[in-house]
Each structure stands twice: as structure tokens, then as C-alpha cells.
């Protein structure tokens, strides 16, 4: 569905994108991860036909973004990271405007708009001025706007930025629904850890280069050479931490008020032996488990090369 080959973008002397290659099959939800200024928004702008690449090819559904922008626009719903709304329009008028801009006949829009408002939980706000909506509602309205022409691809640049936790959860639920509808979704987000369960693939971008790319599970397992074990003892935790430090497979020990975090290089067998050892030392262990590495850890691991804590 989306095919990017050797894509580069240069601003003067600054390389915003360096030789990006990316293929996203139809129906995939692709998470774009990277620090600010890494090139996520640039890539998305190029896919949205708002920016021309310096070199390379980007295709959406077989149409080159520079050669057939009009065809590409028909197939994408783009939500920029920062966007405004026309304050003096009412919610339905706002959607009518964009619907008309996509050449959707009025009769069809009349049917479509209530459905879209239903999807993004704004049915009760259909007759209020866009100005009076909260940030999260505007974000959802913008998402409804992206969907009005039933695009195959959704390009969502930070759709949850600036949202409170409740609004983020609502956004996530909507995205899940969209995934079930079979949309191909590219999403860059700070809430990627939250999205982990619905993202099929991720691409990690840093300094304009793809650092890692693939299925979430693959990347996670590839990186999980070092486990983090979380240990809690009834008492004498500091003493235990000091003793664990000297163990062979342990690379680092950090302790805080939640317990002891042990960076452990061994496999399952060594892990069992470590637990037996701790018990044999006479410590009362409350819990001993492998800490969940989430996408955020993966991201930190890849971009900084540091330990995932």
C-alpha cells in the first residue's frame, strides 16, 4: 500500500531524511517512533503530498506522490501534528466543507456525517461551533474529517499529542475500530507504548535514518538479550542488592522504593538458579519477575543504546 524507496529530503545543508526505505502492506498499522526532529513529520508530509522529496520515490497505492498527487490525495486521510479548525463553523458544517472539498455529493454527506460523528463520539456536538470543543474533541473531529472520503490510508501525525489520559484512551479505541475496518494506518505517537497491542509493525527513525523496522515482537525479542528482573524482598533489600551485584550474569543492579531492578544476561535456567540462590540466602522474596519491556524501552534501547529501565 505504501512504498518508499531511497527517500531523501534536504533543507539546505541539513539532511532531514537520508535514504529511507519502507514498505507497508495493506491493512497494516504502522507505528513510527523517533525523537522530535528525527524526520517522522517530514516523511508523513511527503506522503501527504505537502512536500517534495529531494530524491527517491514514495508511492501510495501505486501512485507516486510527486507525479500523481491528486490520486494520492484521494487515497489518504492526513492528520497533521498541529492543526487548526475554522472556529466560525459548526461541527457538521466543518465536515460538510471537507466532504464537499473531496467532491462528495451533498446527499451522501447528509448520511455520512452522522455516522462519522457517531464513530468519534461527537454525535451530541453536531450543532455547536467548533470553537467551543475541547482539545480532545477537536482531535477526534479532525480524525472524522480524515475519514470523510473513506481513504484507504490514514496518515496520523501525533494524533494523541496534548491529550489527557482519558482522551487518549478514547482515541485509541477509535483507532482500534479503524484497524478493524481494514484501513492502512501510519501513526507517529508518543502514546506508542499504549498502542503496542494494535500496532503491527514499527519503524524507528533517528536523525533522518531508519534505525530499526519490523514486527513489534521481533524487535522486542531481538533486543531482549538483557532481561530486567524485578525483585522485591520482605526486608534487607539493600543487602540483597549488594549481594546480587556480585553474581555472574548480573550486569547492573538498581534499587528504588519499588524494589530491585536486576539487569540479567542469563536465560530461563539461570533465572531459576538465581531465584533459588536468593531463597537459599534466606531472604523472604515477595515477588520475582521479568519486567515488561514495552515499546518505549525498545525505543530507548535502539536510539540510545542504553539499558532499558
Amino acid at each position, binding site marked *: 500500500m505504501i512504498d518508499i524507496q531511497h527517500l531523501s529530503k534536504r533543507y539546505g545543508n541539513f539532511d532531514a531524511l537520508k535514504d529511507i526505505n519502507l514498505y507497508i502492506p495493506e491493512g497494516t498499522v504502522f507505528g513510527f517512533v523517533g525523537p522530535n526532529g528525527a524526520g517522522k513529520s517530514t516523511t508523513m*508530509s511527503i506522503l*501527504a*503530498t*505537502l*512536500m*517534495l522529496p529531494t530524491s527517491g520515490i514514495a508511492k501510495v497505492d501505486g501512485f507516486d506522490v*510527486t*507525479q*500523481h*498527487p*491528486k*490520486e494520492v*490525495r*484521494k487515497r*489518504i486521510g*492526513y492528520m*497533521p501534528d*498541529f*492543526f*487548526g*479548525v*475554522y472556529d*466560525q*463553523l459548526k461541527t457538521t*458544517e466543518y465536515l460538510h*466543507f*471537507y466532504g*464537499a*472539498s*473531496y*467532491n*462528495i*455529493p*451533498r446527499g451522501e454527506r447528509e448520511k455520512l456525517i452522522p455516522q462519522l460523528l457517531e464513530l468519534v463520539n461527537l454525535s451530541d456536538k453536531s450543532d455547536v461551533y467548533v470553537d467551543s470543543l475541547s482539545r480532545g474533541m477537536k482531535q477526534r473531529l*479532525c480524525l472524522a*474529517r480524515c475519514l470523510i*472520503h473513506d481513504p484507504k490510508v490514514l496518515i496520523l501525525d501525533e494524533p494523541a499529542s496534548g491529550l489527557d489520559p482519558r482522551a487518549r484512551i478514547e482515541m485509541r479505541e477509535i483507532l482500534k475500530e479503524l484497524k478493524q475496518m481494514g484501513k492502512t494506518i501510519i501513526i507517529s505517537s508518543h502514546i506508542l507504548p499504549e498502542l503496542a497491542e494494535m500496532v503491527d509493525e514499527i519503524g524507528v527513525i533517528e536523525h533522518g535514518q531508519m534505525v530499526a523496522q519490523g514486527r513489534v515482537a521481533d524487535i522486542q525479542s531481538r533486543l531482549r538479550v538483557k532481561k530486567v528482573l524485578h525483585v522485591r524482598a520482605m526486608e534487607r533489600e539493600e543487602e540483597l542488592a549488594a549481594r546480587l551485584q556480585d553474581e555472574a550474569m548480573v550486569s547492573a543492579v538498581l534499587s528504588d522504593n519499588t524494589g530491585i531492578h536486576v539487569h540479567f544476561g542469563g536465560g530461563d535456567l539461570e533465572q531459576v538458579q538465581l531465584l533459588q540462590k536468593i531463597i537459599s540466602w534466606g531472604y523472604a522474596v515477595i515477588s520475582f519477575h521479568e519486567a515488561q519491556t514495552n515499546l518505549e524501552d525498545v525505543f530507548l534501547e535502539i536510539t540510545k543504546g542504553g539499558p532499558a529501565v
Partner: protein
Amino acid sequence: MNWSRKWINPVLDKEFRLRMRTPRSSISLLAYILVLGLIALGFIYITLYLGNQGNQSFNSGAGRMMFYVLSFAQLVLIAFMAPALTAGVISGEREKQTLSMLLTTQQSSSTIILSKLFSSLSFMTLIIVATMPIYSIVFLYGGISLKQMIFIFLFYLFVMLLLGSLGVLFSTLFKRTMVAVIVTYGVALCIFLLTGLLYLFIMSIVQRSYYSMPSTATTYSFVGYILGLNPAGALISLFEPSFSKQAFMLRNGNLNSNAPIQLWQEFVLVYSVVIIASLWISIRRIRPVARRKSKDQDNQAPALETSASDHS
């Protein structure tokens, strides 16, 4: 309903709604008519009560004079209004962060630019039409034909189109509305003031050299063309066709020969090119344009467009 859908595209529809929903529009309309009305009443007051004889009546000559005064005042007001209304149409959307979403829709660049310009012009036309009752005072006294008045209003439309196109152009080229407004005013100032001053300056130089030369030299000079670039000059030539002749003439001489061109004709001709050029550049620059393989794109675009319309 059908005809309106054909003529009013979504961008235009949105622009109309947004413009007429702000109180600013009605306030500016009120302020405009107030200013022009005060000028008209002030003029009547000056002529009637402060005239030389003290008991001068308001005759058709004064009516014509008032028409001129009103027309010039209106021209100046348009020069102030047009850049303010148009220099923010594109950069304003950019600043409000709505432009990128508008650009990813199916609306073509020319639809967006022309609709924006047209909606601004419509509002200005509304204001100009709303001033007509003030002009009707002139008709009470006579001295002006309806034809003249229609010509003047068409001329206003043209000046608005000119300043509007320049405003849209700078709004497209500059990221900030502030910069676009300032540059548009700057260019408007050049058109209104610089051309006039330049005319007077060069005219004085040419006249001096003319009188120092033997009298075989031609009576007409190129200098008149400079005045043709000035809206005020063009406006006067609409009032008094003989003005064009005077503008080209170096001294009171052969009044039988005609001016090479009426000033307003030159004005319309020259600035039509400017209007078309600025709109063309705006349309080209609002979206990034692929330079490579553009021939290839041109060949394929029509085929794609027809298939697209079949779908919808």
C-alpha cells in the same frame, strides 16, 4: 440549488460563511460608509456655507466636484481596504494551521486561490455597492451621467482585483500575514504614489530639455505613459477624456491631435498583465510542484481525471 452548487464551490462557500459570521465585517462596512458619508456631508458643508459668496447654491458644477471628491476618497479607501482583506487569505490559513488539511483535499490550487480572491472581492463589492446611496446625493444636483458612474465603479472593481491579486500573491509567498500585509501596502503605495511622483519629476526634466531644444521636437512625450500607471491618473481620464491628452503633452500646443492612448486604457492593459501574472504565480506556488518529468505528468493527468470523475 443546482445552479448554486455549480457556481459556489466548497472553498467559496466556506469563505462566505466565515466572513459574514464575524462582527468585523459589519463593523468595517459601517465604518467605511461612515467615513465616505462624512466626506460627502463635509463637502456639502464647505461648499454651501464656507463658499466665497456665502450664499452660493449647490449647483450641478458643485455636484460634479463632489462626485470627483467622493470618487477619489473611495479610491483611497479601496487602496487601504484591499490589501488588508486579501493579504491574509493564504498565510492566515497557514498561521491557523488549516492550510495543510485544505491542500490535501481534492480542491485544485486554482480553485483555492481564485475562490479566496473572489470571496474577498465580493465583500469589497458589497461595500462599494453599499456606498451608492451616498453617491445618490450627487444625482440630486446633477452634472454626472449614469454611464460615467458605472464606468467609475467598474474601474474600482479593477483596482480591487489588482490589489487583491497582489495581496493573494504575497500571502502565498510569505509565511507570515504581517509581512504579506506590509509588502502589499508597500506595493500599493508604489502604484499610487510613486508613479505619480515619478511622472511629475520626469515631466519637469523633459519639459526643461524640451524648452531648451529647437521647436521641431514632437509635442507628445513618453512621460504620459508613466501617469497611465497611476490609478488616480486613470480615474481622472475617465472623468475627462481630454486629460489623457494633457498628460502626454509637453506644452499647450496642438490640441487637435489625440493622445496615443487613454490613460485608463493603458492602466487596464498593463495591470491586467500584473493580475494574471500574480494569480498564476500564486497558483503555482501554493502547493509544491514536481519539476522532474512534468511532461509525463501533463500527458497522464487528463486520462486520470476522467477516470476519477467516472468513479464519483
